[in-house]
């Protein structure tokens, strides 16, 4: 399981726009590099990141090899109701990582 870090407030006022910062440990091997002996290194990247808020998708990103190692993705959402935010990363070679965070809306 890859290491994931999600940084977001635990509490927010209703209607407030909160910023969510996410980071995952992954080499994001591009598939364009070669070993010293000239053999291509196969691509191994995270291809998709999805964030759901109480089951509803609020953010989705398709990642390509041009995303740096240990992908950082920062985005915003409106705090509508208390609940859980689920973060899910999927990629090559069956890679999956997930994280969930609670948000209390006053």
């Amino acid at each position, binding site marked *: 399981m890859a290491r994931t870090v999600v940084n977001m407030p635990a509490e927010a006022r209703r209607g407030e726009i909160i910023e969510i910062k996410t980071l995952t440990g992954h080499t994001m091997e591009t598939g*364009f590099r070669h070993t010293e002996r000239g053999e291509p290194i196969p691509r191994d990247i995270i291809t998709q990141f999805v964030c759901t808020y109480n089951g509803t998708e609020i953010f989705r*990103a398709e990642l390509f*090899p*041009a995303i740096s190692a240990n992908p950082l993705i920062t985005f915003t959402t409106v705090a*509508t109701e208390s609940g859980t935010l689920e973060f899910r990363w999927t990629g090559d070679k069956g890679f999956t990582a997930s994280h969930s965070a609670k948000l209390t809306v006053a």
Partner: protein
Amino acid sequence: MTTRRQFLILTCGALSGAAHAQLPPDIGAKRKAAALEALRKVTGGAEMRTGKVKLEIPPLIDNGNAVPLTVTVDSPMTEKDHVKAIHVLTERNPQPNVVAVHIGPRAGRANVTTRVRLADTQTVTAIAQMSDGSFWADRIEVVVTLSACLEDGLI
């Protein structure tokens, strides 16, 4: 005895030589064609207007391996008028697509930050697709000074 400087020059030369030997001679034209094709896929041939989108990226980049990139789109982000997707494309990376982000009115603000790889000095384009179907773009030219021998496969 080999000095550090000599060693670096030799290995850089060997590595970049090996990498260039594998690339076809018309690589520039091919990448340009790929970039245009990627752009067509995003917009579907629709007109792309300048404005609304703000792409923030350092104009001079030491290390093309992790370049901070922020895209902000001027939009009220309401049910009627919001940003549906943000695409970032390059023209000289081995693959033009960088990231495609799908958002909606629940984002509150159309603002996304990530870190990207840039293979060369080039133009980076951010495109926003609005809920009314229009496309807006911002282009920034960046200078990348990353030594090719560190990322031989990318150049």
